[in-house]
């Protein structure tokens, strides 16, 4: 487009839009839609963009038509065929005379507003740290334009479009609310870019300057003067939506520009004032007791509030404990284990002989300082011996349940309840250890657990778990697997039982020490028969501990 043609066109549009409201805009559009000019498709596109530029500048002027009417009018004009309409117009869906929907790309002389996008859920604002561009710079699509800080994160904001920075609206150190316009970008290929050579007037700037001067001189519908008020179109639309006179607002932006938050703050303060006034005028809730008359009381009666609170049964306060860290790990681990189909197998195991042997060995065998020879090392060694015959019980299974990893090492975990919480360290390679060595290792792990000093090595790599809750109390348990292991045993407390002899209870009954054990197993990979056979083998070794001698290597 030649500069002279552009200036003539601008002048005609300006004259056409001098009237107020709808008529002016309609007149302007007719100028744009007229067919008595030899407009190229490129110029037709420019005309439409210019039309929108003017309609948006007038806060009182509603677009006279939606895209449908624009299309209808355009179709009437053979020089303005629909196929030349810019693609941006196609985005104006539901665009009617009473509602303006802001498209992704504003046809405002090719100027788009770049807002501060959401940088996190619940984050309402960010601090602007620095700009990487300045007014007049060209930016590429996805190029960084600024950096903000939210929470403890620095976030680089990039441009969605390619164009020239026309205006920067915040300074480093400013707090920017999410959704506020950070800067304005003149799109590449917009009206300002079309057919302009170096030195020629910038059409977009000229249109804007005309529009701004019009904005300054045009009075609003209520007759107040908007002179000297600077605000981008989106802010003007927001003010109009809330019925706010821009002249009443003090702008906090550059050069006194009214920002979006200025309007919102003004609206909020106005509503607070209204609430105060309303509360003063409301009938008080506490109504005096109605006099005893035959007439019904009009005012509401409320149950009188006692002067002092009633005495509570107890003075404890609710406590809210966030499930984080160790607790969350526990919750997740148990949730994962809950997804595993467990089955349980319960057995009673005699430990009288084992108790006798343990007592005899404890008296004669020198032990390291701090090492105790309890039942547990024997139970653990017996467990390992049984695992040699039923190695499937010493397995781990992958999350997808595609393979069973039968472990060669018997890393038997022992659940320990400490003052710091529940931990499950494991004794490595029990198959290679003697009962004494197991006892020593157990003592070492107990000491570390009680002093909160277990290492990663101690608490990882387990293959099967023993939970000796009977040391505290209880006969039976339903243990939950320590995934990805496939088996776990819970050992109840040792107790005495009396078994009747063949003739019944005649005073000569034998009493026996027993423990109840409950096996929990992953039914996806282990069946009941395997667990039963395995438990039988283990039970045999415990009830007849001399058999351990047979398996010595």
């Amino acid at each position, binding site marked *: 487009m030649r500069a002279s043609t552009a200036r003539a066109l601008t002048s005609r549009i300006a004259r056409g839009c001098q009237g107020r409201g709808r008529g002016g805009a309609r007149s302007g559009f007719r100028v744009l839609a007229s067919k008595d000019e030899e407009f190229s498709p490129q110029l037709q596109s420019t005309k439409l963009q210019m039309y929108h530029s003017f309609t948006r500048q007038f806060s009182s002027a509603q677009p006279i038509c939606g895209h449908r009417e624009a299309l209808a009018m355009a179709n009437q004009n053979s020089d303005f065929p629909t196929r030349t309409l810019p693609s941006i117009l196609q985005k104006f869906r539901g665009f009617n005379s009473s509602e303006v929907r802001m498209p992704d790309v504003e046809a405002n002389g090719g100027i788009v507003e770049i807002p501060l996008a959401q940088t996190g859920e619940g984050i309402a604002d960010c601090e602007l740290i620095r700009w990487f561009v300045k007014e007049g710079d060209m930016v590429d699509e996805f190029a960084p334009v600024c950096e903000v800080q939210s929470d403890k994160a620095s976030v680089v904001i990039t441009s969605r479009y390619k164009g020239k920075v026309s205006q920067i609206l915040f300074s480093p150190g400013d707090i920017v609310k999410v959704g506020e316009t950070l800067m304005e970008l003149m799109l590449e290929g917009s009206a300002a870019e079309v057919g302009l050579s170096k030195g020629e007037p910038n059409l977009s700037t000229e249109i804007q300057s005309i529009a701004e001067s019009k904005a300054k001189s045009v009075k609003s519908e209520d007759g107040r003067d908007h002179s000297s008020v600077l605000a981008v179109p989106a802010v003007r639309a927001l003010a109009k939506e809330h019925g706010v006179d821009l002249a009443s607002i003090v702008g906090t932006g550059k050069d006194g520009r009214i920002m979006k938050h200025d309007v919102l703050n003004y609206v909020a303060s106005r509503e607070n004032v209204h609430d105060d006034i309303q509360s003063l005028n409301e009938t008080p809730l506490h109504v005096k007791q109605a006099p005893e008359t035959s007439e019904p009381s009009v005012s509401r009666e409320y149950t009188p509030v006692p002067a002092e609170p009633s005495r509570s049964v107890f003075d404890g306060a609710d406590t809210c404990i966030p499930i984080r860290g160790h607790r969350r790990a526990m919750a997740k681990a148990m949730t994962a284990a809950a997804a595993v189909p467990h089955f349980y197998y319960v057995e009673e195991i005699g430990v009288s002989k084992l108790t006798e042997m343990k007592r005899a060995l404890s008296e004669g065998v020198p032990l390291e300082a701090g090492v105790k020879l309890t039942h547990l090392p024997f139970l653990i060694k017996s467990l390992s011996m049984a695992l040699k015959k039923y190695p499937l019980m010493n397995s781990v299974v992958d999350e997808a349940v595609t393979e069973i990893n039968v472990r060669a090492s018997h890393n038997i975990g022992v659940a320990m309840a400490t003052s710091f919480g529940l931990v499950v360290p494991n004794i490595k390679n029990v198959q290679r250890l003697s009962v004494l060595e197991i006892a020593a290792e157990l003592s070492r792990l107990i000491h570390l657990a009680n002093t909160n000093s277990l290492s990663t090595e*101690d608490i990882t790599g387990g293959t099967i778990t023993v939970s000796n809750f009977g040391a505290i109390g209880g006969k039976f348990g339903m243990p939950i697997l320590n995934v990805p292991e496939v088996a776990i045993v819970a050992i109840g407390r040792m107790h005495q039982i009396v078994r009747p002899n063949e003739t019944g209870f005649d005073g000569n009954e034998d009493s026996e020490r027993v423990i109840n054990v409950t096996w929990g197993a992953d039914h996806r990979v282990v069946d009941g028969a395997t667990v039963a056979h395995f438990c039988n083998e283990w039970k045999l070794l415990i009830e007849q501990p001399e058999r351990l001698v047979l398996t010595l290597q």
Partner: protein
Amino acid sequence: MARRPPMHLLRLQGFSIFHQLKLEERLLRTTSQNWCLINEGTSPPAIVMGISGKPEQLLDVKAVIRDGISVIRRFSGGGTVIVDENTVFVTLICGGDSVPIPKLYPRPIMDWTEELYVPAFRSIPGFQLREHDYVFGDRKFGGNAQSITRGRFLHHTSFLWDYQDARMAYLRHPDRAPAYRVNRQHSDFICRLKDHLPSREVFVDSIVHAFDHQFSLEETDLDAIQKTLTDVPHLNSTYVLSTCQLEESLTQKQ
């Protein structure tokens, strides 16, 4: 087993924190790979400030100038720390497609790191992410900061293996302190990892082991990294504040 994305692991000891931060910024902005940097200690002691924040509000500037402590401005957000030979630095640099985080927002990233670290601190009860800090109960042992850029993020932590109270005195009580601090003195608010774990080696091994659950770690070294890095211009936000700048901040305060 789910596929574990690859991650390069760089282990350093006593590496300059300034050069570490420069390297981190370069890896974040100019590469598309996943990285884990672990640096055990830095010398001499230094103060590291977040991307924003005024020295006069956060530091005893006069003491800092008097004692010649370096003040470094880093490219990530967050607050101010003093680091020395007893600080263990752990940094994660990831692409968004390598982590199970739908949106690269600060909070989801932090929650994900908490889960990542759980196996490393399994033996210590009370581990959790509390507001923005790693704590045991209500005692902080690690502070965090992030930098998020298009499709990638960096999350780094300075763990207090041990610390000297005298050095902590360079830091002022920040205006924005976490709610759970409840006006406690600094010494009552933080704790030492060495009081909870047998050795620094075990601690670092625990972290590597924990990360290995989610990533396929491949150990590398500085020379190998330098050879692969291209000389691409990038945002360079890490710098040392000069004495003039620090003195100027005192003027501004007044």
